[in-house]
């Protein structure tokens, strides 16, 4: 809400020396938060000038300039011999615009004027062969709207002939000295979307007198007479109060007075025509939206009803709207001519030929307006006020105020007769414990203080024992609950009065195990040299194509958004690699080719799910009802994913470094699992976006919980990564769920160890892990098995490889004998032979 301070002063007796900053501070402390103080920033000798003479001088560049002699009153130079016409006291100015003639009054910025819109201080300068001693200004150069100066759109401002004498200060004349407070008005303070409301709060905040502009125009108009336009309200729930007055015979050429146009502009709206400006001006003043109809365009009586489903209306923003039974419409004989409380219809709009105006001032049901504004996706000044709730007692007075201004400035006649249908709804009184304000705020607020604060806000308060009964004023529909009353009291007492007391919580249990383990995972991964990044979870088919996911991959099934920011990324990702590979691409693109990045975040797995129920809020939902809410949500497990490009160890004096390989990706995931006391099994897998021959599935009790390995060369190419980049992704929630609550019991033997090496030849497609597992389980005294060599070559048959294992043998209860060792060795060879077809080499 943009509030010109000078306008505010019309309604509240602000101290003359009160600065805009001090006023803004007080209003901010009163819940009208200052966004910014707006002023034109124009300073220096900006004056009114009269063009005494001009000559048009065509230039080589094809332009024609005007070389002007301008009278700027007491700022004239005694003589400007070079300028056209008689050499009288004046200034010589070059001007490129052509919408003015000799004798016109213009706005001149003399040297020394600062115009923020121009960006530099005006000075005398040589141009087109003359010394131009200033500049004749356009609206744009002054930061003004062209609307207020007809004819100025493609040229400079030509002031009305009687605007002021040459030499007069144009800063004040044009209102460029106005200071505007741009206030953020919270949705519960509809009343503050008006000068009336802000002035009232300023009065309370500063302890100065407020004069209600709605009181000044208290009116008596008979409800019958030719001006009472016929209106039928079919749906009083939608439109509880409807008032109308008629003004006839307005001069369509009458213009908006400059002060009014300027105030409307300072308040952030456009000056359009007298009739429209008056309705907007009164809306800004009193906070009540008004609609004016061109009576000549109306056919028959007005009727307020709900729209029928699918009914159409072209609103005055030119949009054809398809209405629903939720929307209220104002109709005449042809059908809807306005979207009730939100926007008028195009067909009956006031125009430059309008002479007779029907002024509609109606109070609409706020929730209905909010719904219409939301469903019709329309944001209007009227809708903004009506949905928050305006003062329903005002319509007749507002209509009268509009009529008076139209008569005063448009020369029309107010016809006798007021249409007034319905009664303003009465706000409910709020009863509360007198001790509640003190109890809730922690400030020592006694009853007289609370009552005074509420009365200052327009409430009436009855005190009965320790109960307060508060009747809110009609402009405060937000005051419905005892706690609302508490806030209203605290606003006056001052939020800065709240003391600081640290409450004592009962002893807590610290982080949950899952929370601890997620932290641990983050630290372990960082310890492994990975840098955590945070990417956005948005993804689309193009991302999944880049990953090379086949058409039937379940990860292609995204949770879709109804209103994604980008059509390229319409859904929520099923894999962290979409974001992570883009981050890898960015790092590589910025020359950081050896990057190891990791992300810990949720992914989203859609499924056919029921719609989420919407419950009432008057009670706690039942356990089953709560379960139904959760049942409507997709699975959202935490994943960990990593991508490594280039080298894991950098090249330096000690050697060529080492590229990150598929093995590093596996090792990191395994290390993570180990730190969570979980053992992962590994199987060969062929899953996008990995290399089909270099991808491991990581399993937990037979269930795949992730993959790791080298990325597919096409994926590497698609993201422009260095060759052989690697990646992994694992379901962290699954690892954490499998993490035992108590760690493993340490078991170890103190008897001597025996070491045996075993070289076995197996076919190429036999996984080494299978052979190792066969050996490890062959005899209970086999303590550990470690693969220490893989050999292929002359001494091994084609299609085979030799795997060399180091075995450590130990019994828990004795020193091993030669027999024990031989038996174990033979058992290992036999098991590897039986399960993996291995031959002793």
């Amino acid at each position, binding site marked *: 809400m943009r509030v010109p301070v000078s306008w505010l002063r019309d309604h509240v007796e602000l101290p003359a020396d009160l600065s805009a900053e001090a006023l803004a501070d007080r209003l901010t402390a009163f819940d009208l938060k200052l966004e910014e103080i707006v002023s034109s920033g124009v300073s220096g000798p900006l004056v009114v000038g009269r063009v005494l003479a001009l000559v048009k001088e065509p230039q080589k560049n094809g332009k024609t300039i005007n070389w002007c002699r301008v009278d700027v009153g007491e700022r004239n130079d005694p003589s400007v011999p070079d300028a056209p016409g008689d050499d009288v006291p004046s200034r010589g100015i070059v001007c490129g615009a052509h919408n003015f003639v000799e004798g016109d009054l213009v706005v001149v910025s003399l040297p020394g004027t600062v115009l923020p819109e121009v960006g530099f201080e005006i000075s005398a300068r040589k141009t087109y062969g003359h010394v131009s001693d200033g500049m004749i200004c356009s609206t744009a150069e002054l930061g003004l709207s062209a609307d207020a100066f007809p004819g100025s759109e493609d040229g400079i401002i030509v002031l009305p002939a009687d605007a002021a004498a040459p030499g007069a200060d144009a800063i004040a004349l044009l209102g460029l000295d106005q200071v505007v407070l741009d206030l953020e008005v919270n949705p519960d303070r509809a009343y503050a979307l008006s000068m009336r409301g802000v002035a009232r709060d300023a009065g309370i905040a500063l302890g100065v007198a407020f004069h209600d502009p709605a009181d000044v125009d208290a009116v008596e108009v008979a409800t019958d007479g030719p001006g009472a336009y016929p209106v039928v309200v079919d749906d009083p729930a939608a439109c509880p109060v409807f008032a109308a007055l008629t003004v006839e015979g307005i001069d369509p050429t009458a213009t908006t007075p400059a002060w009014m146009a300027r105030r409307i502009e300072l308040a952030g709206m456009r000056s359009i025509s007298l009739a429209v400006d008056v309705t907007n001006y009164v809306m800004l003043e009193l906070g009540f939206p008004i609609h004016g109809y061109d009576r000549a365009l109306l056919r028959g009586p007005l009727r307020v009803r709900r729209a029928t489903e699918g009914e159409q209306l072209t609103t005055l923003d030119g949009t054809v709207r398809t209405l629903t039974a939720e929307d209220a419409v104002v109709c005449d004989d042809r059908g809807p001519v306005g979207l009730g409380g939100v926007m008028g219809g195009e067909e009956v709009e006031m125009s430059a030929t309008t002479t007779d105006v029907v002024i509609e001032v109606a109070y609409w049901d706020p929730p209905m307006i909010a719904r219409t504004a939301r469903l019709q996706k329309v944001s209007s000044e009227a809708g903004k006020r009506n949905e928050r709730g305006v003062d329903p007692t005002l319509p007749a007075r507002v209509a009268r105020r509009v009529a008076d201004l139209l008569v005063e400035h448009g020369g029309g006649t107010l016809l006798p007769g007021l249409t007034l249908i319905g009664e303003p709804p009465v706000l409910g009184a709020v009863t509360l414990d007198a001790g509640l304000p003190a109890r809730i705020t922690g400030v020592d607020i006694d009853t007289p203080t609370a009552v005074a604060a509420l009365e200052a806000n327009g409430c009436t308060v009855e005190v009965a024992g320790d109960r307060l009964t508060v009747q809110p004023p009609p402009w405060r529909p937000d005051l419905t609950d005892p706690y609302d009353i508490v806030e209203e009291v605290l606003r006056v007492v001052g939020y800065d009065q709240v003391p600081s007391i640290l409450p004592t919580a009962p002893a807590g249990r610290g982080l949950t195990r899952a929370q601890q383990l997620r932290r641990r995972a983050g630290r372990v991964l960082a310890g492994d040299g990975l840098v955590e990044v945070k990417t956005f979870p948005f993804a689309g088919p193009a991302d999944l194509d880049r990953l090379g996911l086949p058409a039937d991959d379940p990860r292609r099934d995204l949770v879709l958004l109804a209103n994604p920011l980008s059509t390229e990324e319409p859904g929520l990702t099923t894999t962290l690699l979409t974001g992570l590979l883009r981050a*890898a691409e960015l790092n590589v693109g910025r020359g950081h080719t050896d990057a190891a990045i990791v992300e810990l975040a949720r992914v989203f797995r859609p499924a056919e799910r029921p719609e989420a129920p919407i419950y009432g809020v008057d009670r706690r939902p039942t356990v089953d009802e709560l379960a139904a809410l959760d049942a409507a949500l997709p699975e959202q497990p935490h994943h960990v994913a990593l991508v490594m490009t280039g080298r894991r160890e950098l090249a330096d004096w000690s050697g060529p470094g080492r590229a990150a390989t598929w093995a590093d990706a596996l090792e990191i995931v395994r290390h993570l699992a180990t730190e969570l006391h979980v053992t992962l099994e590994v199987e060969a897998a062929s899953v996008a976006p990995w290399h089909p021959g270099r991808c491991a599935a990581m399993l937990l009790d037979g269930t795949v919980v992730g993959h790791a390995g080298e990325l597919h060369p096409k994926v590497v190419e698609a993201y422009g990564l260095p060759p052989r980049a690697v990646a992994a992704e694992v379901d962290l929630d699954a690892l954490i769920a499998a993490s035992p609550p108590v760690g493993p019991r340490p078991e170890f033997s103190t008897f001597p160890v025996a070491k045996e090496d075993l070289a076995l030849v197996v076919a190429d497609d036999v996984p080494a892990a299978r052979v190792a597992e066969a050996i490890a389980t062959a005899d209970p005294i086999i303590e550990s098995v470690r693969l220490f060599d893989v050999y292929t070559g002359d001494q091994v048959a084609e299609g085979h490889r030799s795997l060399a294992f180091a075995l450590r043998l130990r019994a828990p209860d004795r020193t091993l004998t030669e027999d024990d060792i031989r038996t174990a060795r033979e058992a290992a060879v036999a098991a590897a032979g039986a399960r993996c077809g291995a031959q002793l080499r």
Partner: protein
Amino acid sequence: MSAPNSDYDPVEVTPLHPDEIARMRDEALAAVAAADSVAALKQVRIDHAGDRSPLALANREIGALPPQARKEAGQRVGQARGAVTQALAARTAEVESAELERALEAEKVDVTLPTDGRRPGARHPVTTISEHVADIFVAMGWEVAEGPEVEAEWLNFDALNLGPDHPARTMQDTFWVSPEQAATVLRTHTSPVQARTMLTRKPPIYVVCPGRVFRTDELDATHSPVFHQVEGLAIDEGLSMAHLKGTLDHFAQAIYGDGMTTRFRPSYFPFTEPSAEMDLLCYVCHNEPADVASCRTCKGEGWVEWGGCGVVNPRVLTACGVDPERYSGFAFGIGLDRTITGRYDIADLRDLFDGDVRFTEPFGVEL
């Protein structure tokens, strides 16, 4: 036993003459002193302390002496041999130590050679600040609550006193899951976690809820469609705004140090009443008159905006099954991303989310 002595003199055996023994001892000691390597000492040991050394040979002659002379000769030879052995041990230690020193000197390396071939990892500052905040509250006995990011509309809005027609709903630019009738959204705040907590626990409740939230803002230097919040919720008997202020002041001090404080300005949130915006004393200039005017962090205000807070609206308590007649509570929320950008003077919010490792690396594993 020694061989028969050809040069037999029943009284005088030449090698056992005191002067002769002294000479042999001195020769041995000189040889020890002259030896400058472990190898040379080995030879000296053979020559002067070995079985065939003069003193060893002299020792064998003792038996040829008349019994009354043996004791004295024995003592003399023994002392001489002892002196040689001692000298050898001392010299060996000396020489070995010198040789080790030489060897170590020879093995000297340039320790300024780079040894950073493997880069350290780092954690994102939003993660670590979020843990830091959680730790501050856990230290006070609070617990950490969590909830889903795709959330039911009822929990994100209705339960928090944001009914379907509430004007504040349009203030929140919500991502809706398709189709809109599914009534699920990307949570616009972490407040639904508060609702979930009240729905599943009995008061007293003291929880913080850190998490990722979403609004349909286009990404630019100061806005992001994805950002991070931490909210706090306390529900107990007799809680007031004063307890809210006390909690926030403590929080401010735990993060920004002693002397920090907060201030309240009235505001509006549907889920709290009274509601307040909270400002934090500027952590750079501390609103000190000498520094505040030129302070870039608070732009001369002395305070920086920190978040929103208030007393939990009884309507929210009712919807979440908490008896508003018995319990009251307070809630607050701050933006973690802005805490990071503010504290580390980061001009562009996008730096937090584009994944450049050079952004995260300086933050290390913990803040």
